[in-house]
């Protein structure tokens, strides 16, 4: 049940990103809630559990928005497994873990998406793509990351949504 609750939260975030944030954004930038939540899940859970969340939300995104099935499922799955692995082996779930792992997650996830699109000859020029990740992107996403991490950590300690 807790897993389904988390999937619904991720799906809700995906819908919000495709609707609400398209109108309410700062110069076109808005928090990447799905990736942030996946990174936090990756910090909390071991890779044997966390990969399922990346896979399911990736498949949902591919079905709802994607033109090629599997691009986001692959990127999210590989990213969350990597985040879980690094988090477990290096950071041991310290408070700094999400702050350090989020940029790794962003780079990894978008590199995979870009690389897949490049292979499919659907990629935009790499300079244009990288320009989307300026100061404003990090200025919006890092506070959102801390807020979501704190919220999910609190829910986890209360035994809601996430298992200890």
């Amino acid at each position, binding site marked *: 049940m807790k897993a389904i609750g988390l999937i619904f939260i991720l799906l809700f975030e995906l819908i*919000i990103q*495709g609707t609400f944030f*398209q109108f*309410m954004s700062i110069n076109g930038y808005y928090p990447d809630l799905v990736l942030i939540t996946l990174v936090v899940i990756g910090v909390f859970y071991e890779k044997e559990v966390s990969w399922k969340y990346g896979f399911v939300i990736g498949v949902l995104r591919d079905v709802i928005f994607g033109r090629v099935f599997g691009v986001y499922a692959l990127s999210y799955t590989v990213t969350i497994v990597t985040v879980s692995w690094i988090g477990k082996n290096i950071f041991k779930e310290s408070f700094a873990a999400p702050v350090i792992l989020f940029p790794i997650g962003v780079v990894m996830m978008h590199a995979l998406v870009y690389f897949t699109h490049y292979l499919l000859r659907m990629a935009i020029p790499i300079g244009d793509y990288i320009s989307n990740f300026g100061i404003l992107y990090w200025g919006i996403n890092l506070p959102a990351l801390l807020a979501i991490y704190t919220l999910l950590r609190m829910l986890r300690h209360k035994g809601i949504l996430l298992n200890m």
Partner: protein
Amino acid sequence: MKWFGEHKFGVLIGLVIGMLVLGIGMTSGGRAHTTAPEGLLSSGVGSVSRFFYYSSQYVNNFYEFISDLSTLRSRNEELEEQLGEYKRNLTDYEKVVQENRELKSLLEFKEENAQYEYISASVVAIDPDLGFSVFVINRGSDDGVGNNMTVILKEGLVGRVVEVSSSTSKVLSIIDRNSMFNGVCVRTRDYVRITGDDNYKLRGYVDSEAEIEVGDIITTSGLTGNFKKDIVVGEVLEVQTPQGRLEKEVIIEPAVQLEKINNVLIIK
């Protein structure tokens, strides 16, 4: 067996990744139709998305209205002045048009378009990364929508349907970089190869000897691609002749303001 037991997770992830790569390979050329479970999922999410989309739009409009309140008066005067100018221009335009041969072609165009059947649809979601390059509408195969159908507004061309489920469809708009089609300059009849570009503009390529100018109107040629003939694409903003190129490049302002569309028409 012992090896599989020790590397169970690695094998599982390897299989999942392999399956997804296979999925990417199989759908890389695009899919005319989604599977039934995907259609069901898209329909369910589509109705929730629609609620959020319209709520967000309402909130956004209200916010913009409040923000603009202080400058509303001066803006109103400015707009009234513009309106007067537009009315004068419109009167001149109508006189010229009545005496011009283009009226004949316009009428022919209208008559030609009257043959088409249209399906009206509303936008329910936009791709979070690509914006209006790809968007979802609330009509699918149950409503008669088919793959590659032309999507328009009364102002002009919007894009084409690239994927259809039972009650929703995905539309690839003309501003997407992967959109490529042929257009024609109404004045000179020069053919233009058109593709999407940044900032909601289009980029076209024409023969170096083409006499295309700023302000020329471009319509679909109907010769290649999936679009019906004579649908307005946009107006030429800029004509460039890059050094060492055998073609001219033109920047085209789309006739449709894609970032503001809510409802569209699909030509059956």
